[in-house]
């Protein structure tokens, strides 16, 4: 398979958030600011990249019947690594992401890619697929985070763009749903052209 095509698919064509609608919880939950979205996205990308590679490495040793529990244990191990590293080096980000860090385990993107892609392809393709999907997910989080932060608190990545407080609604839960809905509408429109 063409590796460049494999790498670019996650950003737009098969974007996990805007095309496949996988792993929507963090997309809504952590995107009150663009930098939170970036942190969450990179944490997920690391887990996705590593789990894809290892699943591809050990795919021939795992009995077919216990493959799903095996993948879950594998993913949970990498999530624990991320959890400990973030707690040690970026405690502020760790606190603001809260329960969503351990919940990377149950993000459907991870199990979905392990089952649908990594268990059927070689290490290189699986690794690139993990990077592509992870970065696509990060991009989606940043887009939603930017929209909400810009409309809600008038800043981007913590830098003030316009004075005042913005529309408070977009920082609150309903704003997350509305922002995501209209971003999907816009992206569907671009996709069609």
């Amino acid at each position, binding site marked *: 398979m063409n590796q460049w095509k494999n790498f670019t698919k996650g950003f737009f064509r098969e974007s996990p958030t805007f095309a496949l*609608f*996988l*792993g*929507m*919880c*963090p997309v*809504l*939950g952590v995107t009150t600011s663009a930098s939170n979205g970036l942190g969450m996205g990179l944490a997920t990308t690391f887990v996705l990249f590593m789990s894809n590679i290892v699943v591809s490495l050990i795919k021939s040793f795992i009995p077919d019947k216990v493959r799903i*529990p095996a993948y*879950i*244990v594998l993913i*949970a*191990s990498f*999530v*624990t690594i991320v*959890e*400990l590293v973030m707690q040690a080096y970026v405690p502020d980000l760790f606190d603001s992401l809260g*329960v969503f860090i*351990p*919940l990377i*385990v*149950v*993000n*459907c993107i991870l*199990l979905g890619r392990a089952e649908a892609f990594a268990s059927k392809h070689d290490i290189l393709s699986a690794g690139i697929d993990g990077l592509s999907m992870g970065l696509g997910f990060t991009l989606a989080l940043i887009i939603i985070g930017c929209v909400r932060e810009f409309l809600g608190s008038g800043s981007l990545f913590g830098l003030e763009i316009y004075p005042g407080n913005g529309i408070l*609604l977009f920082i*609150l*839960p*309903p*704003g*997350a*749903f*509305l922002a*995501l*809905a*209209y971003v*999907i*509408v816009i992206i*569907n*429109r671009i996709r069609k052209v």
Partner: protein
Amino acid sequence: MEYIILIISAVFINNIVLAKFLGICPFIGVSNRVETAFGMTGAVMFVMVISAVATYLMQNFILVPLGITFMRTITFILVIAFLVQMVEIILKKVSPSLYQALGIFLPLITTNCIVLGVAVMSVDNDYNLLQSVVFSFANAAGFGLALILMAGIREQLELVNIPKGIDGVPIAFVVAGLLALAFMGFAGIV
């Protein structure tokens, strides 16, 4: 009284779906029919109450005494996956009719973030056994309330002419946003 406040706050004020954004996938995925929404709610409630007990015992009698609380994520997800599997097998034998009703939803629950999320939150809040069980039950009820409301609205939406671009997933999110807005009205009742 403490438990009533816990329940009201988990169901209405900090609704797990509409305010904490857990369990969005089933919320969007199985909210097309009121009937399936009820089935899903039943299955989630069942598994969550059992897993609240199991994860509480796991945390306080294995992880804390051994000093390996960092293994929490791995152990909890394994306990939940094991429980779902076991519930499925037991239901199949003991109550085939209930299995018929809940069966297809059970495998989906392992990767439902509500179950793991609530287990982790109970531990983070230092709840005792009864509090964790009540907290899990209330959150499952909150999930059910949001899911059933959503399903009712979406059944009506099928009769409406929706512009092409916003039909499908986007309109579901708009409806969820308006529901969340309505639920914000509950803030401050306790």
